[in-house]
């Protein structure tokens, strides 16, 4: 029931025969059966991989791919990188709809359902995955669970990534907000945090903290989840107004009281932190390589516990197998082998700030020794994934609607009440939209 029957009744043999026939007629018969004999003659099996990593993590993926190619001459890995977000997802959807563009692709775990698990995405054969050493017991349980839809595994989780606190050690030392071991003090509650931010602001002369005000969803969802808020996105929007208002009011206050900029966009946010305009930054752990390359003396902690535990919004990069028009066990096997290798070698990946999903690496001594990953990795155990819906997840509509309306609480153009009303209207509209998957 899950599997979409391939629409045009054109079996592989038929097409090949047609091709071979055509070529034969042209006097080129020798090329006719090239594809089918590749494995038998020992030619490398091609693995066409599509990914969306263009930043510091992209460089690490290339490093891993080089190693994979060295270790596995029996495969011919052909990776293609597209721009993060919509540009990638558009190509993913269209490529998978065609059913023969690529063999394995990366995706955000939050988008697996929305991108068509069962229609565009084929299930991962668990037995093959287990052959290569990846089983339910070796992957972070919360991720495995989310990757399972209707009893089938649709994604192989590679990592967890989430929004965390960066701190400029030099600035924080002068502000007197470091522990004796050189880490940022742990705060609990709004006032406690604001005291720290005020002290940091004294030192920088500009701001205590900076966060992407044009991408407020990550902060909002972290705060809302700290309050224990839930969001139901079926038929009727289920949202706890009080908790949402409390979360939005925090964002309003932090900007209004001058502790954070009223506006800071995606490129401006890390620049403000790097230039010492703000001593702290709330941002995704993927900014780690950028700060390291800048030669900054900085540390990282979990998202501050403003309303409770130090929970942060996040997601997970996964590998998925796109739907195939014609089944090809050899290609699936090669792709699974590749994904398993990536998981087992994800210590390299962890250098870019992401927390490995593969438990033997996540619990290894090598990973424990990585700094500053050690300071925030505990938070990855309890990463707050986006709510479930076809329009939810990284770079999907829910996130962009939230980002667009919530910028107003930071810059003071709308009150938390107005923002919440606008957000609820936008989300209800998405719920009422006929789902395209």
């Amino acid at each position, binding site marked *: 029931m899950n599997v979409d029957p391939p629409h045009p009744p054109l079996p592989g043999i038929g097409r090949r025969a047609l091709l071979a026939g055509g070529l034969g007629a042209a006097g080129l018969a020798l090329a006719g059966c090239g594809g089918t004999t590749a494995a038998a003659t020992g030619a490398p099996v091609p693995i066409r991989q599509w990914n969306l990593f263009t930043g510091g993590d992209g460089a690490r993926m290339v490093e891993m791919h080089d190693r994979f190619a060295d270790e596995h001459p029996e495969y011919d890995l052909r990776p293609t990188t597209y721009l993060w*977000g919509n540009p990638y997802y558009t190509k993913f*959807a269209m490529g998978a709809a065609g059913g023969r563009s690529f063999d394995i692709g990366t995706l955000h775990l939050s988008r697996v359902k929305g991108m068509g698990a069962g229609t565009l995405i084929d299930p991962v054969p668990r037995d093959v995955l287990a052959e290569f050493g990846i089983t339910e017991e070796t992957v972070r349980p919360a991720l495995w669970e989310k990757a399972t839809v209707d009893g089938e595994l649709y994604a192989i989780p590679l990592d967890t990534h989430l929004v965390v606190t960066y701190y400029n050690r030099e600035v924080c030392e002068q502000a007197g907000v470091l522990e004796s071991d050189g880490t940022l003090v742990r705060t609990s509650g709004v006032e406690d945090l604001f005291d720290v931010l005020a002290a940091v602001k004294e030192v920088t002369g500009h701001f205590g903290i900076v966060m992407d005000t*044009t*991408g407020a969803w990550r902060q909002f969802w972290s705060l809302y989840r700290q309050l224990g808020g839930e969001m139901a996105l079926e038929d009727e929007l289920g949202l706890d107004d009080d908790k949402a208002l409390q979360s939005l009011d925090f964002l309003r206050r932090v900007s209004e009281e001058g502790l954070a*900029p009223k506006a800071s966009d995606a490129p401006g946010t890390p620049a403000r932190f790097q230039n010492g305009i703000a001593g702290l930054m709330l941002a995704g752990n993927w900014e780690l390589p950028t700060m390291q390359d800048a030669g900054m003396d900085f540390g990282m902690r979990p998202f501050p516990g403003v309303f409770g535990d130090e929970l942060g919004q996040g997601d997970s990069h996964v590998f998925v197998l796109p739907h195939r028009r014609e089944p090809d066990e050899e290609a699936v096997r090669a792709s699974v082998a590749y994904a398993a290798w990536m998981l087992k070698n994800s210590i390299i990946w962890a250098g870019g700030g992401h927390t490995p999903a593969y438990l033997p690496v996540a619990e290894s001594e090598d990973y424990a020794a990585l700094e500053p990953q050690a300071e925030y990795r505990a938070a990855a155990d309890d990463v707050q994934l986006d709510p479930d819906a076809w329009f939810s997840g990284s770079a999907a509509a829910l996130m962009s609607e939230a980002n667009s*309306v919530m910028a107003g609480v930071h*810059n003071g*153009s709308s009150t938390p009440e107005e923002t919440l009303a606008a957000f609820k209207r936008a989300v209800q509209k998405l719920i009422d*939209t006929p789902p*395209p998957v």
Partner: protein
Amino acid sequence: MTAPPTAGRASRSDTGGTSATGSEPRRARRADLAGPALVLPFALLFVLFLLWPLAAGLWTSFTDRSLVGTAPSFVGLDNWAEMAADPMVWRSLWTTLLFTLLTTPPLVAVALLMAVLTQRAVRVGWFLRFSFFSPFLLPVAVVSLIWVWIYQPGFGMLNGALTGLGLPEVNWLGDEGTVLLSIAITTVWWTVGFNYLLYLAALQGIPSQVYEAASLDGAGAWQRFRRITLPLLNRTTAIVVLLQMVASLKLFDQAYLMTNGSGGPDYAARPIIGYIFDSGFTNLRIGYSSAISYLFFAVIIAVSALQFWLFTRKENTA
């Protein structure tokens, strides 16, 4: 469209029977065939890449086609009804129109001013031509990148200048009141060079005797500009305004890039093409986004027709 070839074929069979009549009709027949044959390649491409997609797009707007390729089904006017009731459609359409109103007058006036200036400043003409035109050569990604940093609050160049003058900072791209204006300013800086080039060429086509005669009759510089330059540039102005309005209505790239695809605070800088993109590609709803694109297509045609009518009327009365 298929009429001429059939006519040609018919005449061939006619003359085939009466070949003794001489070469006169044969030459005419060959000319008959040459026209359609020359038009054919273009006509084929036109049908294949314009008419067919246009028809396919219109059909798609009556279906619930999704980008993820599940079989679409016919939904009648559902998309169109949803569109009529969707405030974001009208809001983004207004954003596009507002942007056109904001950018077209300066893009025409500034271009003319710069062209006249270049025409007069003979000695530094090459330098002015180079500096006025060069921004137009930059790719949109570079332009956006430059201006995103210029507009940064706190450490951007523009706000640095404002605070240096003792003025308060403006949150250019971060405020819903200024974000579209900021994109408009960037666009003027970026694309004014093209209109400038058109005006410069037209100015060089005005014979200098006309000016000489006018000065002998005692016309001042301002009078010469108003009574000679402007009227003689009328046709150029018409084409510049038309091209500019169509270009401004098609706003997307710089708005998308300068707001990181977010459409700006509260979607204050999401043009209708941005909404078409979001509906079709973020939300995967190709059917619905086709309906919106047809609405927008109608608006562009209406605006162009109105503009064409205004200018031809002016020319006839003049």
